[in-house]
């Protein structure tokens, strides 16, 4: 039991690595603050392209969405960060992460938005248009708010997935939470830093998961 405690819950080590872990935690928060809006906006753009009336816009957009949904995000990230330099494109870790996540997250969010837009009855658009609202105004004030409300649980679930995916950034040595924790683990030869990181991820995500459950319950009832 003592071995277990000193290996996984070693308080001395936890105190010692706390500043490092905290820095990683802040980096992860920063990533979330950048990546979630990028994904949400990119998803909106992806949805608009994929539902365009022109098939010359629609088809490539749908193909791209399908491609990036089936492409493993880790492979995508390594390709962008370590592969593109061979084509003469050298990106900072943050830029590589942003691009990889834009492509991946926008595809997933885009499909969710599309389901949301399809859930809004046709009569809503007709009502808006027949009061003289333009197509863009009708989308912004009538369709989008209802679409988002109808798929809020799915949007939040995808956000949870996205936040978990930020751990991938550690493979290109971006100083996020998992990377800091793993660094601390290798410096201390102890697993406690990883436990700390896991606890921090739980603290971030558990409330979100609870909210999703609530919303699903409310929308179903």
């Amino acid at each position, binding site marked *: 039991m003592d071995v277990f405690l000193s290996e996984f819950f070693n308080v001395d080590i936890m105190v010692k690595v706390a500043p490092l872990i905290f820095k990683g935690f802040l980096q992860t928060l920063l990533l979330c603050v950048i990546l979630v809006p990028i994904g949400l906006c990119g998803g909106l753009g992806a949805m608009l392209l994929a539902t365009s009336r022109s098939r010359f816009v629609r088809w490539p957009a749908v193909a791209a969405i399908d491609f990036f949904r089936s492409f493993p995000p880790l492979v995508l990230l390594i390709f962008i960060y370590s592969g593109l330099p061979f084509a003469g494109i050298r990106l900072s870790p943050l830029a590589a992460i942003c691009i990889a996540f834009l492509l991946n997250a926008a595809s997933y969010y885009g499909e969710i938005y599309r389901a949301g837009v399809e859930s809004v009855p046709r*009569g809503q658009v*007709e*009502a*808006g*248009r*027949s*009061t*003289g*609202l333009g197509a863009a105004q009708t989308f912004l004030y009538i369709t989008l708010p209802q679409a988002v409300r109808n798929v809020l649980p799915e949007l939040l679930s995808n956000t949870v997935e996205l936040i978990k995916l930020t751990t991938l950034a550690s493979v290109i040595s971006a100083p996020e939470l998992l990377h800091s924790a793993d660094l601390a683990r290798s410096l201390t030869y102890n697993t406690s830093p990883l436990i700390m990181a896991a606890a921090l991820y739980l603290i971030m995500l558990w409330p979100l998961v609870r909210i999703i459950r609530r919303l699903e319950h409310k929308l179903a009832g």
Partner: protein
Amino acid sequence: MPELGPFLLEARGVRKAFGTNEVLKGVDLLVAPRELVFLIGPSGSGKSTLLRCCNRLEEPTGGTIRIGGTDLLSPRTDINRMRRQVGMVFQSFNLYPHLTALGNVTLALRKVMKRSRAEADEIGMDNLRRVGLAEKAASYPGELSGGQQQRVAIARALALEPKIILMDEPTSALDPELVGSVLAVVRDLRDAGMTMVIASHEMRFAREAADRVLFLDGGVVVEEGPAEAIFTAPREERTRRFLHQVRH
């Protein structure tokens, strides 16, 4: 022929085909100012399609439509400007569920007419009062009865001060005991001189309130005339048969 006729709505030879299925086969619908015209006819006769052509929710495949003298179908016509002059009331209300009753009425006032929120709210409240629902301004559509929702939808159309209001079976989705409240509003509008075209199965109300009745069948106007004449002495056999069916 002068460009501007005496008609507020002047639809001539309107045709509409969905693929190979021609639903309107050259329909004339002429509505004078302050007139209340009822469209009656069996299911599938093209009543809804005709109304929807009159604000271009459907694109007619032939014919001309003028509203207040302006050619609705001309590519140079600003369709959004025309549509706010043509109020539309739908069978299933189509209220925006994420907005309050007042929000429903004021959305176009603010975003199309560019009124300030305070101005729009004032106009919105006036129109909710007009349909007897001022006290429901803060309620969401989901909290209102069908009859109340349809009256909010009428207020939403009225708020833009349209030249004409088109109603597509405004009471068909309502429980029988709620129909009266909507018909009362329609009666008030008629008495106030609002020009309206209503597709409806409410034969008793049509007979009482309509200035003129058009009987549509198979995409053509089979017979039209004053309500009293159509209901008591229809000339056409098809009209007689239809009226006989709906009464029994």
